[in-house]
């Protein structure tokens, strides 16, 4: 029989994975909330960021956690440019076009990486990779605890940016009423690109947090992004508190159901949850009625 200790350990582990899911989901939900589109290139962006972290470590010996500020800034720039110069102009204002263009981007990034790195899985070997805190009944991996802390801090920073800064106010204005924001003098195209940039920055940070304990391969982003879709839908598309709560819930569900279910069926629970939420309550737990 499963002892409470094992279940508690699974819950803790799930919380820590959930925090990283939250970071990935934040970018998706932010872009959805403002642009009302799903960025299908989100997963590929994550993969690309993980490869950058991988190269920085193996070639230059830079620690993933040290990379966080540079990665966040760099990917903000990449995301900004992508929306401003590729996705925005190419979509010509149609939502379905955005779906297709971001899908095209994701195919290009993913297979470009495949052409360069082939389908091998790679991981990095940081000195603290296996160190852990002893809680008596279980061990907690140090890099995962650090990742948990950084994730929540980033979510908080994002929240403060949205609530306290002028740019944040403009983002919320565009999300609420695009036309009105435009009439009030907000440069909507700029705000769209900033939002896209913020989304890319959050996955770039997630990549830094994942690499010490995880591996990278050209298709790895998909696995995460499907979970992130579930979280975004569960939390309510466009809702930041929803994404964080949803991510922690999904992290725990995944970890605990891993104790009971066969490995091959592990992801099934997530997809079924996803479909049920979509069908029964598409606005999610926190989403406003549209």
């Amino acid at each position: 029989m499963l002892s409470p200790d094992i279940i508690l350990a699974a819950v803790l582990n799930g919380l820590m994975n959930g925090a990283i899911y939250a970071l990935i989901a934040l970018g998706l939900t932010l872009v959805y909330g403002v642009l009302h589109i799903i960025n299908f290139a989100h997963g590929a962006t994550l993969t690309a960021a993980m490869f950058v972290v991988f190269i920085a470590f193996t070639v230059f010996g830079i620690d993933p956690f040290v990379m966080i500020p540079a990665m966040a800034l760099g990917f903000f720039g990449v995301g900004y440019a992508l929306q401003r110069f590729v996705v925005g102009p190419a979509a010509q204002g149609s939502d379905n076009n955005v779906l297709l263009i971001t899908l095209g981007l994701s195919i290009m990034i993913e297979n470009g990486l495949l052409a360069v790195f082939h389908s091998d899985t790679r991981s990095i070997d940081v000195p603290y990779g296996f160190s852990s805190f002893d809680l008596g009944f279980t061990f907690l991996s140090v890099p995962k605890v650090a990742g948990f802390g950084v994730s929540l801090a980033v979510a908080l920073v994002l929240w403060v940016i949205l609530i306290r800064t002028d740019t944040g106010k403009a983002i919320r204005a565009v999300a609420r009423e695009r036309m009105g924001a435009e009439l009030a003098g907000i440069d909507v195209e700029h705000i769209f690109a900033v939002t896209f940039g913020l989304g890319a920055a959050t996955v770039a940070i997630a990549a830094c947090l994942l690499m010490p304990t995880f591996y990278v391969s050209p298709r790895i982003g998909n696995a995460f992004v499907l979970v992130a879709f579930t979280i975004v839908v569960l939390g309510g598309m466009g809702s930041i508190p929803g994404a964080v709560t949803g991510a922690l819930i999904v992290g725990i569900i995944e970890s605990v159901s891993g104790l009971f279910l066969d490995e091959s069926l592990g992801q099934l629970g997530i997809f079924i949850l996803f479909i049920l939420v979509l069908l029964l309550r598409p606005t999610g737990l926190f989403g406003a009625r549209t």
Partner: protein
Amino acid sequence: MIALRTLCPLLVVAGLALIPAFTSANTTLNFLVFALIVALSAQGWNILAGYGGQFSFGHAAFFGLGAYGTALAQARFGINPWVAFAAGIGLAALAGTVIGYLSFRAGLRGSYFTLVTLAFAEVFRILFNAASFTGGAAGVLVKLDVRPENFQFASRSVFYWVVLGIVALVLLLTMRLERSRFGAWLIAIRENEAAAKALGVDVLMVKLQAIALSAAITGAAGGLYVQYFLYLDANIGFGPWISVETLMAAIIGGAGTALGPVLGALALHGLGQLTKGIAGGTPGIDLVLFGALLILAVAFMRDGIIGRLRRLLVWGRR
């Protein structure tokens, strides 16, 4: 005089039908059969998304069910392959109706519908990969028994003509649909669902019929696939790549046009073959090109290749 819109499809089909007369190379025929199977799959997607505006990213669900239905009916129940093929198509149509009923009734549109189709395809992939009835991860084999009544032919050309015949049939059906009342309703829903509803279109019913037809056609593509390659596993049948290739062929050829998916599939596969020939063993290079093409098609070619050709012709006549 025959109108251009009738002449073009006729020429394309006739041209394709003549190819085996000039070459019997296995590689060429393999390539053409696969390209036509993708074309058929894309024709199915085109009904729901091209005409109806409901963007599915999960048509692999129907492709896989058509393929598994065809394969399992033979392998597990010993049913005649032609009947099994029909059963596969029926299974796909049924799944389409159920998925459509659940999601359209819940009011899922746009991105939400796209996501839910993606999730259904993944659920099928995981389930079929795990269940022992479907052969699990090892997949399912169709017994080699080359007889026409077994839907297996000694000559690849014959199979090619069968696939082409089905593609031509769906082409005809789509052209009829364009001019039918049902087609007009479907396009009205794509352009403005609320307005269509206000004018008395039974939106749910029309969408359901569209997804059932769409799923049946894509399911037929799956059935043909397994009948040709005689092997299937969940990552082939329900793989995300099938969904992507299906929609790409339709978009690049011209979504919402009858001939678009066929031209798109041929162009896409021709180009893929070409880049593979040039780039050699580097994996993924052809797909990078596909992704770029998808973006370019969306950005610069409204209505895809067909739209381009049409504008060229109209411009030329002026």
